[in-house]
């Protein structure tokens, strides 16, 4: 019981940190913190606005390094899926997030927070399909 409750607490605290991060981004840069879009626009080697995107992505990686040092179990993957399955997953995520203009951060957090109908629809869709896929091909 205690462990279940603490998992909820960790999730809530982590969520608040994410909320804080995207709020600072909006206040400082006036931007939506959409990770798929930031990654794509960074990759395009566009001049000018590339700096902040690179800085953000670098921050994600440095945050990951901190986690790997101080809280390594947070980055553990115990699923043992085949790498071809993981590669297909990655391809679908990359292609799908650009076609649908956003992922969990851009639609799921930033978009829902401003009550965007597009983001609410996208989030309900990707969660529903995620549930379906897990139901069909399982864990």
């Amino acid at each position, binding site marked *: 019981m205690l462990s279940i409750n603490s*998992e909820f607490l*960790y*999730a*809530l605290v982590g*969520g608040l*940190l994410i*909320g804080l*991060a995207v*709020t*600072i981004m*909006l*206040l400082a*840069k*006036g931007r939506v913190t959409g*990770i798929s879009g930031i*990654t794509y626009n960074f*990759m*395009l080697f566009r001049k000018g606005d590339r700096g*902040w*995107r690179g*800085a*953000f*992505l670098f921050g*994600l990686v440095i*945050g990951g390094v901190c986690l*790997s040092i101080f809280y390594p179990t*947070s*980055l*553990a*993957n*115990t*699923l043992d899926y085949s*790498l071809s399955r*993981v590669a*297909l*997953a*990655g391809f*679908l*995520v990359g*292609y*799908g997030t*650009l076609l*649908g*203009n956003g*992922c969990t*951060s851009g639609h799921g*957090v930033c978009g829902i*927070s*401003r009550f*965007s*109908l*597009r983001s609410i*629809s*996208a*989030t309900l869709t*990707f*969660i529903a*399909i*995620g549930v379906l896929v*897990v139901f069909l091909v399982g864990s």
Partner: protein
Amino acid sequence: MVKNWVPFVVGVLFALGLGVSGMTQPQKVVGFLDLFREWDPSLAFVMIGAIGFHALFFPMITKRSSPILADQFHLPNNSDLDVRLILGAMLFGAGWGLGGYCPGPGIVSLASGNKESIVFVGAMVAGMLVFHFTKPLINKVVR
């Protein structure tokens, strides 16, 4: 230079939030999506925390005439529910359920050196490049 320190710090905070919340553990993501067997509802609290916090401050911030370090706000103003949006979300949801990673947690997990995250991010970048180079075709097929 200061301008890029802020997005850097935002990236670090975001990564720590993902790690603390459990979003960087694909087994937890799959557990959250496994609604009909052993559902693990804990990750719902990530969205509650993040959306609750951001929704509270969003109206106050956008009342300003401009952000602090930029000339103007860059917020999406498209409100059409189109085929691309739903189809894209479907493909993304399929990949999310199949691998347990979405873009942020994939990138953050690279630091662990685990092979799944490296393969995932590599394939995600490939998917983005394929999208980029097929964009003119996609624009003809779906609105």
